[in-house]
């Protein structure tokens, strides 16, 4: 009996999963919210042939995977498919998607279920707030990358890159490649923290280091300063960014007084790591670990039978471990076993590359005194414009300990982004770094995973047939 594997997410993990599932003879349906496959890592222009491969990594792998999938009659790729909910019937989870141009209205509504489900929804940037971060011109590292890779657009002419994590390096490199002057890369982690995170894993990460060394070399060649123990603590300007204040910070990210430097800049790219996109895994009923990732076993299986997760949702580790996890998830979802010989290599790679995740986690841990750079005016919830001062005042006045009443009394997390941007920060401020609230509610629970139009919701969904024709991919290269 041919298994049908539903895969949510067309980035490295999802693509690897699709390929492995097809290799095992399964039928695959892949749902990707964007107009093109690739996720964030392989974001590319609408005209694929116009891709600047200098901005890409592992591009050959992307081409191989997409060719494998699009050429296979057992694969159906649906792009512009926004999964907005997962509900359940007697057979198990059902995926609800709106297919059509981003944000509709009038998209086609489909409802789909298979024998297995693989959740490969990736992650988005975690950005710590700072005074002025709500000014136009302040964007995430992911935004800089998306604009550079997909549209050859620099988000500014003079750009400061700030935050923590190895991701700052390719962000700076791609900004420079599309013509921006990068004022500097300001990594908040101190040399001591970086060494503690990276050095113990260096022997196993030999394969990774050249790539990172390559970025550092490129930054050096372009004379872009890479400074550790430094953070942008304020963005200035009206109506948009015109400069930044950078300060030295200690091991816990508290700014040292008197170390502020001012730089002219019309854009700031910020990334303090990544937040996994968990809402669909939660909707499917998957258990989430204490450090807020989808709990999976060696087969990439979640706590729900028939549901798998791969990539950043199981731990922030980058594209290579996502490819390995995706391969394992796809193979097992299609009926294989994690001990099968086909999986020996991805299982080994996963073990090695999880050390990269550990290096990132330990080397770039958010310092507990970062909040000392906040002022009362600093916006915490961008959507609802709730300031740090207001948040603290209302929480003190109500004495609330639950995330739900905190949201409903302050309005944090109640805007269209539903706490994606401010959520981890609010949880940390409300409860502490372990983010365990008094009412057990977590910010990542979003039964409506993406906004849909009321008219779209009103329509009874179709169940698409699994066609056997060639070229059923709807990816558009214009």
């Amino acid at each position, binding site marked *: 009996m041919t298994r049908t594997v539903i895969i949510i997410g067309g980035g490295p993990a999802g693509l690897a999963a699709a390929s492995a599932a097809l290799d095992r003879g399964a039928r695959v349906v892949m749902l990707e919210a964007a107009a093109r496959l690739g996720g964030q890592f392989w974001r590319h222009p609408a005209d694929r042939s116009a891709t600047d491969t200098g901005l890409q990594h592992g591009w050959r792998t992307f081409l191989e995977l997409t060719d494998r999938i699009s050429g296979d009659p057992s694969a159906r790729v649906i792009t512009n498919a926004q999964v907005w*909910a*997962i*509900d*359940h019937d007697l057979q198990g989870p059902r995926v*609800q998607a709106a297919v059509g141009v981003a*944000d509709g*209205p009038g998209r086609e509504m489909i409802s789909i279920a298979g024998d297995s489900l693989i959740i490969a929804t990736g992650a988005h940037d975690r950005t710590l707030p700072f005074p002025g971060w709500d000014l136009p011109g302040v964007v995430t590292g992911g935004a800089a990358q998306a604009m550079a890779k997909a549209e050859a657009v620099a988000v500014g002419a003079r750009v400061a890159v700030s935050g923590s994590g190895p991701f700052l390096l390719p962000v700076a490199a791609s900004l420079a490649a599309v013509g921006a002057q990068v004022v500097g890369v300001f990594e908040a982690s101190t040399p001591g923290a970086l060494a503690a995170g990276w050095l113990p894993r260096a022997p196993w990460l030999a394969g990774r280091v050249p790539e990172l060394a390559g970025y550092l070399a490129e930054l050096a060649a372009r004379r872009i300063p890479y400074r550790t123990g430094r953070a942008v603590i304020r963005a200035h300007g009206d109506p948009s960014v015109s400069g930044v204040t950078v300060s030295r910070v200690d091991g816990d990210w508290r700014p040292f007084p008197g170390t502020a430097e001012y730089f002219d800049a019309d854009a700031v790219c910020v990334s303090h790591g990544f937040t996994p996109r968990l809402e669909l895994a939660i*909707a499917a009923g998957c258990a989430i670990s204490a450090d807020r990732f989808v709990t999976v076993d060696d087969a990439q299986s979640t706590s729900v039978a028939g549901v798998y997760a791969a990539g950043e949702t199981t731990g922030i580790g980058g594209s290579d471990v996502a490819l390995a996890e995706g391969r394992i998830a796809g193979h097992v979802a299609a009926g294989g076993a994690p001990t099968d010989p086909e999986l020996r290599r991805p299982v080994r790679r996963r073990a090695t590359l999880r050390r990269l995740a550990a290096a990132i986690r330990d080397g770039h841990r958010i310092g507990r005194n970062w909040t000392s750079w906040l002022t009362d005016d600093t916006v915490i919830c961008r959507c*609802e414009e709730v300031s740090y001062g*207001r948040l603290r*005042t*209302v929480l*003190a*006045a*109500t*004495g*609330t*300990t*639950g995330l*739900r*009443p905190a949201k*409903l*009394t*302050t*309005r944090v997390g*109640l*805007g*269209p982004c*539903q706490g994606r941007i401010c959520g981890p920060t609010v949880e940390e401020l409300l409860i502490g770094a372990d983010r365990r*609230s*008094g*009412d*057990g509610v977590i910010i990542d629970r*979003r*039964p*409506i995973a993406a*906004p*849909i*139009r*009321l*008219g779209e*919701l*009103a*329509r*009874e969904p179709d169940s698409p047939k699994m066609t056997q024709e060639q070229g059923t991919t709807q990816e558009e290269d214009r």
Partner: protein
Amino acid sequence: MCDMVQLRMFTPSSDAIVVGAGIVGAACAYALSRAGLSVTVIEARAAASGTSSQGEGNILVSDKEPGPELTLGLYSLSRWEQITGELQEFLPTGFPSIEYDRKGGLVVATTEAGAPPLLDFARTQRPAGVTAVEVDHDEALRLEPQLNPAVTAAVRYPQDAQVQPVIATEAFLAAARRLGARTLFGEEVVGPIIADDGRIAGVRTHRGSRPAGLVIIACGPWSARVADQLGSWLPVRPRRGVLLVTTRMPHLIIHKVYDADYVGAVGSDDQGLQTSSVIESTAAGTVLIGSSRRQSGFDQALDLAAAREIARKAITIFPFLATASVMRTYGGFRPFMPDHLPAIGPDPRVPGLWHATGHEGAGIGLSIGTADLITSLIAGTPPPVDPAPFAPSRLGEPASVGDP
């Protein structure tokens, strides 16, 4: 089962324990504190973490037929009118507004068949003190310009109001604390403290003993379980409801608007899915769209069928909402009572045990009235309304072991 526990002097005794920090429990804590009692509120999770945060903040008279619930509702409404000012005295600076808004309601029928029942219902309500103004088609569209022009009948209820229920709950609690009440969160009741004479003398929680002169159960749909733990019985059951929230949009919906089905759904005993449009704007600029009723236990799973029906009906009332962006859904469990009246008053089995629960979808509106009523019964002062219809003793006995 009940334990015989010696009254201990280690934990200071309160005059009253209120179990449950939803809006009803919070209002009771406030009213009892104002009456001079020392109060301890014991809440298993956080304030308003149950039904109070899962509804719309409705304070309605439009959906109530003449009877005890309407009487309590009218009294409670008169108190809501004053409460913002009254609470100011007790709230710390920076406390957010409870957003009380007497915006009025408009009930519309969109079919020929729906018009007569709506108008008849309004006719019965007027003698009981409800202002129900029949409006013609043109006036309905003037009141609500975005209304579907196919409306066949409309009745305006200027007394209908709205409040932000979570803030209101927190406000009652904060005011009660200012008056000396204690609020304990994350503390779960496990059993009663029973005195030698059989009276309840407090509760045992997973943290220890909490002695008190009397205990009030205000746990909404969880009241059945707590009543059982404390040696009594209450036939309250969860009735699931789902709401949709849109993104912020220009202010196009002025009143609370419902279709005439709403009244039927509230009064129905049907366990299956019942939906009826309830649509309104909020102070934040979003639009709340409800509502549904389904008896499915405490199942929290996403109910897409309910969401779909709610969406469909809302677009019938306001066609422009078809392009509204739904950004979240929430919902919860109303405390459903078999005779559609809350239980407010002394428990017939356990002396010293009281109930303030079972308000189904009307708990926000009836909270202050309930609090004043139970306070008067406890303090021996003249009750604001006739307490008899709400007496828990009316509910009889459980039909069999394991009810409800």
